[in-house]
């Protein structure tokens, strides 16, 4: 019998610990130059640990994540720009490694949803309130006016 530990909702988040006690960046990895180290940390937060999912390499304790962290730092020390480091890693591991997908036709719906929805929703609201306001302020028909006059004169 295989044990299936499908646990209560968010509870499952804690299963991240399966990756081991959370000791991501180790003291021996830290670069001497604080500016370079800060850049390395920022880049690491955008890179996915490929073996433990939904964790960045900055948070993960897996060996592969450590290798990637060291790789990022090596490239930075070698003088790469942030962009060059990311390109290098994507060329080796594929786009899957990026936690923030690139702007590409394939991802257009992903990036476009908030913008499109906000625009369409906004336009819809403006149009409906406009049409309903004009409806509300429309002059009374002769019939209605007559009825009103009758009521008022009573």
């Amino acid at each position: 019998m295989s044990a299936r530990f499908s646990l209560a909702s968010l509870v499952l988040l804690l299963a991240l610990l399966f990756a081991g006690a959370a000791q991501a960046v180790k003291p021996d990895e830290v670069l001497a130059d604080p500016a370079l180290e800060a850049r390395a940390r920022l880049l690491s937060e955008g890179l996915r640990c490929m073996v433990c999912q939904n964790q960045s390499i900055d948070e993960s304790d897996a060996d592969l994540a450590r290798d990637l962290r060291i790789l990022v730092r090596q490239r930075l020390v070698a003088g790469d720009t942030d962009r060059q480091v990311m390109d290098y890693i994507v060329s080796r591991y594929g786009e899957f490694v990026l936690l923030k997908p690139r702007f590409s036709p394939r991802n257009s719906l992903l990036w476009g949803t908030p913008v499109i929805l906000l625009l369409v929703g906004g336009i819809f609201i403006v149009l409906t309130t406009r049409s309903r306001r004009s409806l509300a302020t429309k002059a009374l028909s002769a019939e209605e006016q007559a009825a009103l006059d009758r009521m008022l004169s009573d």
Partner: protein
Amino acid sequence: MVETGHFALVLAFVLSLVQTLVPLIGARTGNQRLMAVGGPVTVTGFALTALSFAALAGAYASSDFSVASVWENSHSLQPLIYKITGTWGNHEGSMLLWVLILTFFGALVAAFGSNLPATLRANVLAVQGAIGATFFLFILATSNPFTRLNPAPIEGRDLNPILQDLGLAIHPPFLYLGYVGFSICFSFSVAALIEGRIDASWARWVRPWTLVAWMFLTGGIAMGSYWAYYELGWGGFWFWDPVENASFMPWLAGTALLHSAIVMEKRSALKIWTLLLAILTFSLSLLGTFLVRSGVLTSVHAFATDPTRGVFILCILTLFIGGSLALFALRAPRLTAGGLFHPISREGALVLNNLFLTTATATVLVGTLYPLAVEALSGGKISVGAPFFNLTFGPLMLPLLVVVPFGPLLAWKRGDVFAVAQRLMAAFAAALLAMLVTGLFIDGASVFAALGVGLAFWLVCGALTDLAVKSGFGNVAPSIMLRRFAGLPRSVFGTALAHLGLGLTVLGIVGTLCFGTEKILSMHAGESVELSGHTLRFEGLYPAQGPNYSEDRGRFSLIGADGGIAAEITSAKRFFPVRQMTTTESGIETLGFSQLYLSLGDEGTDGSVVVRLWWKPLVTLIWGGAFVMMAGAAMSLLDRRLRVGAPSRRRKPAATMPSAGVP
């Protein structure tokens, strides 16, 4: 006892079918006796589900390893509290908790809904019964918690050590009370669509249920966030993980629903939209259940690899979401639109709130499902993680948060935005001051940090301004003002508290993200380290023994200003032999609203140990703010208006709001 529980579950399933069909037929044919069947059947169904749940909890408490679920998820050496909470710390048990709460809410409607129109009540119970029936069938067919083992094993396989925490006692029940609470709003909406009309009692009923569900969901999410924060050992409080998103989407949609229901109740406008939102909110709850339970997410969370469950829930999902939306498309045009309003008005502000919240919900939804869609359609793999959500969700929330203080101060129908801006001058000045102080006097404060702090103060002071203006501050004598303040409707306090809590949460997030500091180092016993003005001395590692684990405790002393020991902090690495797993117990010292957080890493060969240390300024406000939001919801529930029945039925004043804790 276990067989009794199993039998009760089967009976509850059959009763839920009766609950679905008989009142529905009664409502269609106008047969009072058939409609009246709904109430007693619903209450009995709840009693049977409770019996079934008690039987399972009993099996867990007494470590009856002849039950497969208990054997897989419990151990005789576990402390009793974790034996009991282990009941819902697994798939089967948590589904049973899900239906228990579902039938509980149904029973509340049955017990206290006597002042509802008979057909509406019958239809609501029927829809609630239908949801129940599908989930009972799901449990019995694919996830039976009462499956026996023969021969019975002598010892269990232990509860996942990460779940052996007090968080498991609070987080899932709260989350489910929220998730499933929205089922009532859903049932009311579908019932209204079946009837083809939305009447006054509909509006009065939906809002309190939304408030109850929202309150518990807020608590559940906040509790989950704090649990992850202290248990995972790196001090993150939100990960944009698909499973978190699954609970966050109903929260966002529920927040929108909460606000549009106000417009509907007060001004009988936005009826159709509110109805749709109620359907969507519970649909997102169902979707969340599907995402978590089916294992469709390639997430660390989803361990279930059995597709039968996934397909089953997908069928439930299609039935209810598709069915209700089809019904909506069919019937909504017949519903009459409500009152008119000028764009600059309280209604207009609430519409704006809804626009941003629904867009945010859709963004989270698309972000969560996009990798699945890409993989299914093109076979490619992409990741959508925290950086994406921060970049999209953040900018969507920003304008919304800026306009929050305006909303409650605007008049209904037609408001004066300049008059409101004038009243908010003090709050604006306070926010500006906070921004300047942050930018000029705090080292390393970025422009974002200053803006964030300003925004938080704007929200908090805006909420206070609302109360001040409504009690007549500056216009009347202080004594009259006090009297007016005390006489304000509780829903006004509710709104102010909820918005104030939001401000506190924002302040906590900004404080932690922008001013937090971190240190990673190896330490020997006796060494000291300084972080953001706090000095910590590592006293050494000490082995200790728990009931079902062994641990190495790292003891640290916080050195006070006088050089003495101000506090002791302990962080541990626990080893659970049954599952061969290690967990980190972080050491946390709360100083004011801020926390000093540390966790232990690997031991070096020279007796040193890796220590990660964080200073997290104002971090407790993140969850404190959520708690204040809950208090706001509770305050709104106590509003007299929500406890008083429909005007025509004044005879039973306390009956409409069962969950409000009628005094």
